[in-house]
């Protein structure tokens, strides 16, 4: 039926419209796609090109060799790997707290609010606060000395031995709320009968949660593990930059891959090394994602509704 017939049948004039046909969805998507292509597509291609050149000349994999052999880069990678140790801690703590909140103890809504608060604060703000709290004569050490624990009053950020662990603790403090909220949201979606049945079977706290809660949460836990692993490997710049005044110190003890890229690109004037390191970092996150999809397939659709 053509437009004229249609007008006759419906008794209404049809407006002649531009026939876009199959191109129509592309017109809706195009503006966003253009921005994404520029920010990601152009940058990735340029990044790889730069990582293979030195001052405009093709040098093959030389930049990668120099980067990988650089002891500072190795130290940085090692620190990112050590930061990964925070992931199991985050998962366990989030599980514990979300289960406690789920039990509906008095004031659980307030506790949920408080636990999630650190996650929405800006990292620079968090970094500066903890930088002050953790100074040699900061609030924490004064409190420790006041209760007679002078031996524990360390120079938390000033000693190479402790600085990275201190940093890890701050990251855990900030990232914990995300896991709690995630797990709690999933728990609240589990049909209540499942818990009831287990309870009437006489399951106690740990039994109940090991047998019911953890399997129910498998999908979200896998998701959280991946998100936090990616965070530890490639999103900790802000913490390090703010808490060590952009140095990764003392003595490279908090040097991480992102800071290495930043320093090489903008302070040491060797963008080709930064490009090579960035390519390596990008490939690492790709591996993590691939791992995630495999885990998710094995666990099944645990995360979906």
């Amino acid at each position: 039926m053509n437009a004229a017939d249609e007008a006759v049948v419906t008794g209404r004039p049809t407006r002649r419209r531009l026939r876009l046909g199959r191109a129509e969805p592309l017109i809706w998507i195009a503006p966003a796609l253009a921005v994404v292509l520029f920010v990601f597509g152009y940058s990735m291609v340029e990044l790889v090109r730069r990582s293979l050149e030195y001052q405009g000349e093709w040098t093959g994999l030389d930049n990668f060799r120099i980067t990988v052999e650089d002891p500072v880069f190795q130290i940085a990678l090692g620190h990112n790997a050590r930061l990964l140790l925070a992931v199991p801690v985050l998962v366990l703590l989030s599980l514990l707290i979300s289960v406690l909140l789920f039990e509906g103890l008095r004031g659980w809504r307030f506790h949920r609010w408080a636990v999630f608060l650190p996650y929405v604060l800006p990292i620079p703000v968090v970094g500066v606060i903890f930088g002050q709290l953790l100074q040699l004569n900061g609030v924490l050490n004064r409190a420790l000395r006041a209760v007679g624990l002078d031996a524990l009053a360390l120079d938390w950020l000033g000693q190479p031995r402790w600085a990275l662990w201190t940093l890890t603790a701050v990251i855990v403090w900030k990232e914990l709320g995300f896991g709690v909220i995630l797990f709690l949201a999933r728990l609240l979606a589990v049909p209540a009968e499942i818990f009831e049945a287990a309870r009437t079977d006489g399951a106690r706290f740990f039994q109940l949660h090991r047998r019911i809660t953890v399997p129910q949460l498998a999908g979200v836990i896998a998701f959280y593990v991946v998100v936090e692993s990616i965070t530890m490997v490639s999103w900790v710049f802000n913490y390090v930059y703010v808490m060590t005044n952009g140095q990764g110190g003392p003595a490279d003890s908090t040097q991480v891959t992102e800071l290495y890229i930043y320093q090489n690109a903008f302070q040491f004037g060797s963008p080709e090394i930064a490009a090579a390191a960035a390519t390596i970092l990008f490939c690492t996150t790709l591996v993590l994602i691939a791992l995630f999809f495999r885990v998710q397939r094995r666990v099944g659709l645990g995360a979906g509704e």
Partner: protein
Amino acid sequence: MPVSRTLARLVKQAVLVAVTCLALFPIYVMISAAFKSQDDFLRDPWGLPLEPTLNGFRTALNDQFPTWFANSAVLTTSSVAATLMLASLAGWGFARWDFRGRDTLLGVLVSLMVVPPVVLLVPLFVFGVEIGWISTFRLVILIYVGLMLPFSIYLLTNFFRTIPRSLIEAAIVDGASSWSVFRRIVLPLSAAPLLTLAVVNLLWVWNELLIALVFLQDDSKRTLMVGLTGFQSRYNLDVPVIMSGLTLATLPILAFYLFGQRFFVRGLVTGAVKGE
């Protein structure tokens, strides 16, 4: 065994209270120190400010603080507005029409969510230098929009797919154009996800440090987060001034969080609980 059950309850309650205290303590120190004088703070760093003073705030506000605040506000609102606009157009394109390569394209978009921004820094900076856009808002807004789009499109596409087909078809039979379907039916139905997305994105841009640090080097273009980082070393000895600055920077977020907690939670959880 009611006694042991009461005991268990008490232990659980105690653990929760301890966790809450740990979560709030640093924030409490920040806000209370902001109202103290330097002497007060050194004498009693964790007590309440018994003689509250606004000197810290005054010093912070007399510094470049208002400029940074305004810069952050401009950047945040304009990049989030642009993101919402582009993402809802694209989301509708993905949700309404089935075309070849759609799922692949969406899959690629979703995976871009995990690309660390630091990876894009060098090429974008060189680009910025070449066309003279360093220390301009337009380049930073462009980058922010690009970084926010993958998640935003993903979230909106998922939502748009839940809009009943029959509603759309009825409007088309009535002679509505694609554009008016989008304007008059899709957008009004999507107020909640758009608001959620706005909150999550506003939070992200407001808190962003790395890109602002690299691309806005001009003193008059600094954002709040970059400014605060330098603030720390400048007022190293005057903790109350630093804490006043931090409090002011956190205030919009705290206010938002107090009134709109559910939007934060919904937005940050959606991506995860929906799977993929």
